């Protein structure tokens, strides 16, 4: 992660190479919970994108002023502040969705991915790379959530973003918690397989928070 890595590479990294959900398997807790619909997944992804980017930016700006001994609590504090911001904004502008997912939005503060990016990247890099890294990781997260959401909503309710596509509800189990776990496991397995078959990768996701 040098300062000379091109910004385009950084962006791609967050989406594919080190995709937070499917590759690094970090911060799964709320991710799987909110994907019972594409719209929920999208809004959650947007919230995470916002918090990731702003936290990375803030940490990068303050990196020379934070005492290394208190850096982890400082990062947590910064993240918590931005989560409070997005929490308030969402409860104001997306009241209905917020009622369902409010708890999970607040739990963004416990995301290991945000903390680890701040620690590993933003604290050592200048503003623009940190911003792009945050956007990349956030986009990776958003796309993963949408992928899961499409899969689950289509199979579970036969709809897409609330509009009915299929006449019936094929597999209701998909929108329940069980379906969430199944969808996640299957997605990970398939992506591993694709990775091994077409990209010659190791095809194994590491475990983590």
């Amino acid at each position: 992660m040098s300062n000379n890595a091109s910004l385009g590479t950084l962006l791609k990294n967050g989406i594919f190479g080190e995709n937070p959900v499917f590759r690094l398997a970090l911060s799964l807790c709320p991710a799987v919970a909110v994907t019972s619909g594409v719209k929920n997944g999208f809004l959650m992804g947007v919230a995470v994108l916002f918090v990731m980017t702003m936290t990375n930016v803030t940490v990068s700006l303050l990196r020379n002023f934070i005492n290394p001994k208190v850096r982890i609590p400082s990062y947590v504090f910064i993240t918590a502040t931005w989560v409070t911001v997005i929490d308030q904004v969402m409860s104001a502008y997306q009241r209905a969705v917020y009622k369902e997912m409010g708890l999970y939005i607040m739990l963004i503060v416990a995301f290991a991915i945000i903390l680890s990016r701040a620690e590993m990247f933003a604290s050592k890099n200048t503003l623009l790379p940190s911003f792009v890294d945050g956007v990349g990781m956030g986009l990776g997260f958003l796309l993963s959530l949408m992928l899961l959401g499409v899969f689950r909503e289509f199979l579970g309710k036969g709809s897409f973003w609330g509009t009915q596509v299929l006449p019936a509800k094929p597999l209701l189990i998909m929108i329940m918690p069980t379906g969430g776990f199944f969808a996640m496991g299957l997605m990970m397995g398939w992506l591993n397989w694709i990775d091994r078959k077409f990209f010659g990768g190791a095809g194994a996701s590491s475990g983590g928070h």
Partner: protein
Amino acid sequence: MWQHVLTIFIASALINNFVFSRYLGLCIFFGVTKRMETAIGMSFTFTAVMLVEAVLNWLIYNYVMIPYSLGFLKIVIFIGTVAAFVQAADTMMKKVAPALYYKLGIYLALIVTNCIILAVPLLNADENYTLFESMALALGSGLGFSMALIIMASIREKLELADVPKSFQGLPISFVLTGLIALAFLGFSGMITL
């Protein structure tokens, strides 16, 4: 009143199990369930910390935050108390009970990033629970989490001997397993309407 407290306890342990119904605590769930010993160790540590945390945060929320209208800061303050308490417990345990620390100390550090530790105080605040209701939620969540850990650990230990396809080894198959257990827990729903 006690009936309501008991209802909350059972609901949070079985019906709204934090792992299988609310998807929380997955962070640590997959991490410590590779071995039965780690699962059991984490169960004890988690329940103890959860109970103290819930009480601490309840006190702060009701006696400091509500009187001064600081409700919007609950995210920041709750995670602050979690971090501070874990740090304090870590230091205390090292001095007071070194043998216990040697066995369980490692789990303390992991608990800070556990989603459930933050979720329980947030739920208590949102639902405006009394002290005993909050404790019931905390204990119930601890029990539910312990059950989840032990069930998962016992399956995963056997899984090591199974012939899992290469793409599914590790996390993917664990997720599918969790889905199956969640399916079983679905049977509890409707037992008590909360």
